[in-house]
């Protein structure tokens, strides 16, 4: 430490006595022979004197008591901490972030909501027989597989139809049951199901409208009467509409040997989305359940808003009639 710059850089430490004895001695020796550094030291001392004109303040007499009181009042502490730590704008930003996080969590939880809570565009599969459940779950997602239940809710894009065929060579039992929403208001159609495109025909025309030998039960049990027959355009299918007061049941028939008929998705769209029977005044709300089965020549689909037990009783009667 030989230069004046070195010495002057250490003057602060020298004045604070924050320096080792050897350096202190070097500075003292230098100051004895250096007017410039002596002047710098005097300037340091003078500056300290000037700064000291800003006098100290005395604490209020009750500061300690106030502190003790605050320490013993935990409810007030957090408020004080909050007000001292955050500005109002910071608090508002935090609140905004909190609201966004909460909304995100709510949306996330809603999206991940178990399928057991049904939405309007979902349908319920009710298994007619225990073994049907095993057959159906082969065709649906692994997530649904893990739900041991006698019914399940499925969304628009889930596989909805599985035709269970018993070993019996002639007649099969209903393969599966779909239940549409039990809503009483109109459900908007995303796209008109192919199933509603057709024309009303009379009984004598029925055999001319399709290339298979259809079955026309005169009446279904439990008071349902035939209201209309419709040939579904381009699908080689028939639609028989039965009504009982305000309840309706639709019986669809098509050949069980052709690929040109209506698909499971068509029936599903009809059951879930269609709410008004075309070309009639019959307002059909929430058709609900679908039963599907087939025999050696005809594939049947029964869709109705009657109770499930009623629909299930209709199936054997139709089969019986067929025999």
């Amino acid at each position: 430490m030989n230069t004046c710059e070195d010495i002057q850089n250490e003057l602060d430490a020298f004045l604070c006595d924050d320096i080792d004895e050897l350096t202190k001695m070097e500075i003292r020796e230098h100051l004895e022979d250096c007017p410039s550094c002596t002047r710098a030291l005097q300037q340091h001392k003078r500056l300290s004197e000037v700064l000291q004109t800003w006098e100290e303040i005395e604490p209020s007499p009750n500061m300690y008591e106030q502190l003790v009181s605050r320490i013993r009042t935990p409810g007030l502490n957090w408020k004080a901490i909050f007000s001292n730590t955050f500005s109002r704008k910071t608090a508002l930003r935090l609140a905004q972030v909190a609201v966004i996080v909460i909304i995100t969590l709510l949306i996330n939880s809603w999206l991940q909501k178990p399928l057991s809570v049904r939405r309007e565009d979902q349908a319920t599969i009710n298994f007619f027989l225990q073994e049907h459940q095993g057959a159906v779950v082969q065709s649906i997602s692994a997530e649904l597989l893990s739900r041991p239940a006698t019914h399940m809710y499925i969304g628009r894009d889930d596989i909805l139809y599985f035709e269970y065929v018993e070993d019996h060579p002639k007649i099969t039992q209903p393969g599966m049951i779909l239940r549409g929403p039990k809503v009483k208001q109109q459900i908007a159609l995303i796209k008109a199901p192919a199933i509603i495109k057709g024309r009303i025909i009379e009984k004598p025309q029925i055999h001319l409208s399709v290339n298979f030998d259809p079955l026309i039960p005169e009446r279904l049990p439990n008071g349902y009467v035939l209201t209309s027959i419709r040939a579904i355009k381009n699908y080689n299918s028939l639609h028989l509409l039965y009504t009982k007061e305000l309840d309706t049941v639709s019986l669809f028939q098509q050949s069980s040997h052709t690929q040109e008929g209506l698909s499971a998705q068509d029936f599903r769209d009809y059951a879930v989305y269609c709410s008004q029977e075309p070309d009639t005044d019959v307002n059909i709300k929430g058709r609900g359940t679908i039963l599907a089965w087939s025999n050696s020549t005809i594939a049947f689909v029964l869709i109705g808003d009657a109770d499930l037990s009623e629909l299930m009783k209709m199936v054997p009667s139709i089969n019986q009639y067929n025999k």
Partner: protein
Amino acid sequence: MLAYVNGDEIAFESLYHRYEKPILNFINRMLMNSTEAETHCQETFFRVVRAKNRYESTAPFKTWIYQIALNLCRDRVRRMKHRSHLSLNGQASFQTDENVSLRDTVSDSSANIEKQMEKHEMQGFVKKALASLSQDEHFVVTMKEYQGLKLSEIAGVMNCPVGTVKSHSHRAHQKLAKILAKYMKE
């Protein structure tokens, strides 16, 4: 402090009375507002109580409590700057002691009013000179000149090398000497 951490409430009272005035004046000189200083002084001790279990005996209590006070001052200054930016006229919205009139602070009964006024004027210049420093320079000068901390202790509070403290001190000294040149002649 260790006695207080171990449950000795009397030790805290003793600690409080030893550091109350230095911390109050440190904050007052950083914020230049005696009302704010009292509030933040209390907050400093409150945080000491709240964080007592996090106190490490390897660090001097003096360093620790000044760190807490310094952080509070920095937060406060940051908020005041923010408010100042928000203010249409660009002025900070809080009131400093500079706004207190001379009449309020000078005793009418004093025989040497002129001398008091001169002292008051010098004090005003000192405050303005300190206010012109950067926050770190202001802090180093306050700790060194008013609180009597050594450069190594200041480095501990600021958590930076001693060399950095010396640089801040050197620059602050040059600025202050220039601004206060009028008073530097004895």
